[in-house]
């Protein structure tokens, strides 16, 4: 990804069918790959939050963000660099129980990486790790070297801004007072 930065877009929209399509279409039109995507209800009633990461440059991501925000049902769209956000992802690692039992180094590695064993049965062990992409990938590579991984998955990124202001709430407050005064 020469000359490109991994940007995170935080998009807030009304909870209406088809908004995700409209958002991804803005990327598709420019043939920009979405690296990760997380969609969930936000803390504001009726508002959905999309956390999207994509490799881009400032000029392109600015245009993409504005074109997303232009969609009628999108309340707000902003892009961020990693330093502006508190970021988390989750990795799930399904390991072979016989392998884990046979090699105590595997359990020690899991603990050293601040990961948790969340389920154990005679066939498999489930390990969970929260953190940034690199941390989750790093645990994956170590466990993979032990040859004990049956399945692995990493979630999309979730993020909250480090800004002291809650821009979406402020925007909606402003809009709703505007409605009352007829602006």
């Amino acid at each position: 990804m020469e000359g490109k930065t991994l940007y995170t877009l935080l998009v807030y929209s009304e909870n209406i069918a088809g908004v995700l399509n409209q958002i991804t279409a803005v990327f598709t039109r420019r043939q920009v790959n979405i690296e990760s995507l997380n969609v969930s209800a936000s803390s504001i009633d009726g508002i959905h939050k999309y956390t999207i990461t994509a490799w881009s440059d400032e000029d392109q991501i600015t245009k993409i963000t504005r074109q997303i925000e232009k969609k009628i049902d999108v309340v707000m769209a902003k892009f961020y660099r990693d330093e502006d956000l508190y970021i988390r992802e989750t990795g799930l690692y399904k390991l072979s129980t016989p392998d884990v039992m046979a090699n105590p180094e595997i359990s020690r590695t899991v603990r050293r990486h601040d990961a948790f064993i969340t389920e154990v049965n005679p066939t498999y062990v489930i390990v969970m790790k929260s953190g940034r992409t690199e941390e989750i990938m790093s645990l994956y590579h170590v466990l993979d070297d032990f040859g004990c991984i049956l399945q692995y998955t990493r979630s999309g990124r979730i993020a909250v801004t480090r800004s002291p202001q809650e821009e979406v709430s402020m925007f909606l407050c402003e809009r709703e007072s505007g409605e009352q005064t007829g602006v």
Partner: protein
Amino acid sequence: MSKEIITGAEALMRALKNEGVTTIFGYPGGAIMPVFDVLYDYTRGERKVFEHILVRHEQSAAHAAEGYARVSGEVGVCLVTSGPGATNTLTGVADAMMDSTPIVVIAGQVGVGALGTDAFQEVDLVGVAQPISKWSYQIRRPEDVAWAVSKAFYIARSGRPGPVVLDFPKNAQTGTTEWVPSRVGFVRSYVPYPVPSSDAIVRAAELINNAEKPLALIGQGVELGNAQDELLEFIERGDIPAARTLLGLSALPSGHPLNVGMLGMHGNYAPNVKEQECDVLIAVGMRFSDRVTGLTSTYARQAKVIHLDIDNAEIDKIVKTDVAVIGDCKVTLPAITRLLDKKRHTQWIESFRPLQAMEEEKVVRPAIYPEDGPLLMGEVVNAVSEVTGGNAVLVTDVGQNQMFSARYFKYNKKRSIVTSGGLGTMGFGIPAAVGACFGAPGRMVCMFSGDGGFQMSIQELGTIMEHRIPVKMIMMNNNYLGNVRQWQDMFFCGRKSFTRMANPCYAHIAQAYGIPYCAVTDRKDLHAAVADMIATDGPYILECAVREEDNVLPMTPPGSSVDGMLLEIKI
């Protein structure tokens, strides 16, 4: 008060009436039959509210709605069935999106229970319409009709206008609901009229006050914002020469002394060259289309750029802006004008004259006053323009006919040009002219097309015949798809791949449709034929046999800087 229980179809009629709709362009079909059944009552007798124009193809319904909207400033409405009826409108929807035209397309849909089953004439309309419309919504319940229709009209007409698609499943048409009228004038996630930054206004005024060579680029935003008067005050106070985009042509009267012509690939020479010389470029309600900028990497690099636009997503999209004034130009133009010093830029404006004279001599005179040879498109347009005196509405198709008419037609009145700019949709002309006749009753509508575009919507002669729609159709027949042929000659070694076209006998076609017709092949007959067309009530087809291999000039070749515009080409 007792509750009034009505069907969703009836609710649609009432909601349309509440939005002030008077004209609907449509075509019935299975999934919209309950609506057409109610429409029957609303189009006749004492309950008559609407004029319904039965087009001959759904694409034409959308283009007619566009033509209607462009001249009237009201929302154009189009009513079609599901599946093919709906997909046929999509070219018009995309066209309206590109050219910021407010239309609402209402399409039938299979019942909600059958959605996703590949039912007969089912298509995921919202899915396919979303990327090419301003808003698309499926009205799944009769109780949602009133607010959804009002919201659709609000979104279509407010802010930067655009097309809205309503997908209306059959169960919601036949199901019943209590009638509760709705008036949507607020959507919390949508800010149609951003409040302009006063800082930006001050900085814009400062730049203009310090400019020695300012140049204003006028787009359709001025017409959409109904800010033609505000524009005049602005350019007159600052003594700023102004060039117009294709869609902004009638935002400023052709004869205004500060009007320096048309921008673009086939626009006027002086403004294209001067874009590369001005010190401050003031773009008002235009979007720096690639047809205007030519090669963007060299475009107006010397100038400070001020961009007035209502759409934030247009800022910095193509040309980097020094000052962005985001808002309705009806508000931002006078706000800047108040801060402007009264200026004279006589020397700068005078410097356009020699370039204008060059174009006049090399291009304009030979195009509109040829002395011999076959009839030319330019002289046909000029002849019609002279007789209509700048008061007619110009509707064009797409191609050479469009460029010649845009170049040589004159305008005194606002909202006088209807053309497919962004999408460049051949076949747009005839149906858009039908819509324009209903949108501007009392005004003369002159539709110019070539033989290619004419045949793409030739079936609408049926609509014109049925309603005696008074559109003057000037078809400039060169037996070619002329614009592509010109490019083949210029850039593809003259290999005329499928641009030569055999034509039917249009006299017979006109006769079959009962439309008065005249053919001009000889220059000496042109003026009499035009006069006869203008004097004839109702529709008219004037076929002009024009030079087969004419070229539109001047021309900025693709990939060239705007000042590389050619006044003559050697093929």
